[in-house]
């Protein structure tokens, strides 16, 4: 079967190219079907791959061609599938397919639809290649490629300054991460002489502990950028400028999890360095907490979901950091479904509200768009970790993992964050669908979205409910056994049922308390959110202003660099270097003007010059060159 493995990424690529070349003049709306079919095909093709991996636990690989034959730096392009990849294949192509279907409805009538449906499959292609790569450089290539697609799709409505800026910001911030990632690859090559997974992982131990730590951290810098960890997550909220399906696919379900995927992929290296894992855990926890606090204060429905994404990515990160590898991947999978669902739901709301995103102008939409409501509710509940939805199992397991990986502080942070999670999720639900209608009924006529959009919602909702059970019972589910080969030598502490139940109970209580508070606040109105925000004062302002990260970057990095560049250009280039060059020129001219004065025009002086010259020469020779005076 490995013979047609290459079709899985190729079909979306083909669709992308066709739509890009012919979309504008020939295909127009037809492009959407080409794209959707291609992605569907690659989804269908990935199923047997998954099944084969599941049945016989052999990894598959297919060599395509040699990319860079630069002496001993020889980079093949080889597709490689193991359990981790297989899982990602299904997630990517599956969610990708649903988003494609959804987009048919969402993007209907947009003049640039052919661009949309060439960028989107291009993204699917890149993401598939990213997970299929068998060496770090190819991984890096498509790491950048997904970044490009995200750039193109965020800037899809490029005539908006905000969209264009957001796209640029996303790409550049990601590049900051890639800077470290790239150096990591260089270091890997210099250390191990190869950058193919097999080769590297085979000889991890050969390097010194510091080297391993440095490599691990460098790889993680890449993840920080791509998976929107502190301090680089600033690009993700802005990325919401893109069409909502894009946010669902790229900025929730797949691309942003690439960082998590890479760390998991680099398990043999990362797991060797306790320091690196600690750093990862801390950064992850911090990210999860900060993002959650911000999410509570946002009014833009998409921004809420976006920050929740950042927060969830933080969960995955510190899961990895504290050794709960499988839990992280598990959460990655469940998160893909419920977060995708949440975004699509939000999109459906926005669609129904005529592109209105501010929750303060919504409310009581429940009766206008019931299907959207229920699906969104499921997603929110899953995200908040209400038993028995998917989010509950994975998140609960992560928190458990932190305890098992004895990181008590992280665990506490995790619980607090979980509380905030349910706060902002249900805040969004109640502000949007309950309470009185705050929109002006003359202009806005809320309506349910068309079938093509709601069906994906339902499918995703179904998974958001069920997918959690692949990880049941906790620590010992089918999913764990499936992924086990990917993380060889990972400790399997056998956990007492009591512990599991205890943790489950705690997180359920937390989740429900959040739900209760928000119900009181936005439905029963017995608590005034404004009152609380005034109570918190500066803390609230801090969160509401996204912890001032953008401003800090602007003042500390952007402006100084621009000033420095101006200095280099205006002073070093124009004054120093060119000044020297022109200085030589003017010096020669000046000398010329001085020397020409010797030419007085007076014969007397001319004769004198001749005589003087003769005398000097003769004199010089008489003194130095002869024995006249002896």
């Amino acid at each position, binding site marked *: 079967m490995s013979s047609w493995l290459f079709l899985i990424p190729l079909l979306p690529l083909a669709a992308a190219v066709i739509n890009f070349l012919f979309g504008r003049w020939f295909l127009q709306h037809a492009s959407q079907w080409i794209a959707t079919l291609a992605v569907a095909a690659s989804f269908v093709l990935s199923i047997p791959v998954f099944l084969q991996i599941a049945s016989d636990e052999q990894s598959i690989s297919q060599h395509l061609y040699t990319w860079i034959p630069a002496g001993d730096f020889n980079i093949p392009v080889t597709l490689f599938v193991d359990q981790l990849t297989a899982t990602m294949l299904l997630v990517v192509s599956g969610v990708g397919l649903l988003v494609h279907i959804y987009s048919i409805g969402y993007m209907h009538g947009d003049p640039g639809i052919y661009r949309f449906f060439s960028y989107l499959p291009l993204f699917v292609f890149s993401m598939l290649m990213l997970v299929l790569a068998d060496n770090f450089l190819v991984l890096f290539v498509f790491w950048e490629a997904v970044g490009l697609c995200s750039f193109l799709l965020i800037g899809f409505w490029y005539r908006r300054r905000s969209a264009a800026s957001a796209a640029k910001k996303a790409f550049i911030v990601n590049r900051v991460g890639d800077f470290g990632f790239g150096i990591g690859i260089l270091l890997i090559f210099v250390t191990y002489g190869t950058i193919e997974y097999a080769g590297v992982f085979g000889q991890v131990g050969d390097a010194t502990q510091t080297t391993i730590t440095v490599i691990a951290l460098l790889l993680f810098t890449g993840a920080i950028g791509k998976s929107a960890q502190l301090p680089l997550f600033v690009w993700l909220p802005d990325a919401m400028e893109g069409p909502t399906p894009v946010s669902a696919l790229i900025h929730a379900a797949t691309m942003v999890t690439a960082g998590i995927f890479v760390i998991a992929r680099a398990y043999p290296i990362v797991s060797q360095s306790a320091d690196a894992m600690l750093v990862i855990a801390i950064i992850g926890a911090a990210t999860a907490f900060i993002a959650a606090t911000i999410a509570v204060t946002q009014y833009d429905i998409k921004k809420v979901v976006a920050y929740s994404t950042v927060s969830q990515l933080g969960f995955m990160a510190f899961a990895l950091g504290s050794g709960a590898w499988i839990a992280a991947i598990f959460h990655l999978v469940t998160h893909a479904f419920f977060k995708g669902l949440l975004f699509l739901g939000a999109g459906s709301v926005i669609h129904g509200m005529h592109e209105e995103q501010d929750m303060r102008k919504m409310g009581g939409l429940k009766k206008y768009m019931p299907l959207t409501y229920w699906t969104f509710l499921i997603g929110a509940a899953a995200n908040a970790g209400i038993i028995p939805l998917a989010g509950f199992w994975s998140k609960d397991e992560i928190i458990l993992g932190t305890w098992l990986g004895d990181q008590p502080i992280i665990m506490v942070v995790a619980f607090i964050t979980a509380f905030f999670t349910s706060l902002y999720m249900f805040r969004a639900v109640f502000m949007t669908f309950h309470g009185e209608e705050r929109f002006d009924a003359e202009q806005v006529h809320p309506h349910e979205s068309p079938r093509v959009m709601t069906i994906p919602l339902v499918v995703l909702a179904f998974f958001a409910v069920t997918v959690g059970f692949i990880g049941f019972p906790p620590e010992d589910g089918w999913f764990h056994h499936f992924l086990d080969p990917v993380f060889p030598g990972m400790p399997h502490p056998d956990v007492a049922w009591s512990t599991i139940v205890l943790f489950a109970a705690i997180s359920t209580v937390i989740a429900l308390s959040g739900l209760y508070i928000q119900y009181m606040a936005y439905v029963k109105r017995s608590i005034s959110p404004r009152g609380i925000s005034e109570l918190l004062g500066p803390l609230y302002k801090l969160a509401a202003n996204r912890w001032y990260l953008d401003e800090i970057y602007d003042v500390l990095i952007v402006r100084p660099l621009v000033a420095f560049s101006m200095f280099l250009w205006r002073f070093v280039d124009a004054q120093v270097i060119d000044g020297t060059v022109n200085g030589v020129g003017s010096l020669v001219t000046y000398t010329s003007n001085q020397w020409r004065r010797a030419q007085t*025009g007076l014969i007397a002086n001319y004769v004198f010059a001749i005589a003087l010259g003769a005398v000097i020469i003769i004199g010089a020779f008489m003194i130095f060159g002869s024995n006249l005076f002896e």
Partner: protein
Amino acid sequence: MNELMPEHFMFLSAALFIIGMVGVLTRRNVLVIFMCVELMLTAVNISFIGFAWEFSQLTGQIFALFIIAIAAAEAVIGLGIIMALTRQRDTVDIDEVRELRQ
């Protein structure tokens, strides 16, 4: 007691030559300068003759003859140019002839 030695010729010619040179350097009148040049040539002639006398050859004397001839030609041309000058501008003072400079 004092018979003629080659040195006498040489010192005489050297003296004349330097006198001529100084004249050229100091005087401003074209004609005088020209005369000084002629004086220098004469000095050369003397030294040639002197050497010829010393070596008792004819070569030097022939050379001197040629110098005299050429000096004559030079005189013709020089005076011609000076005439043209005076025709253009009524002066023989070289300091007034400095349109071309720098």
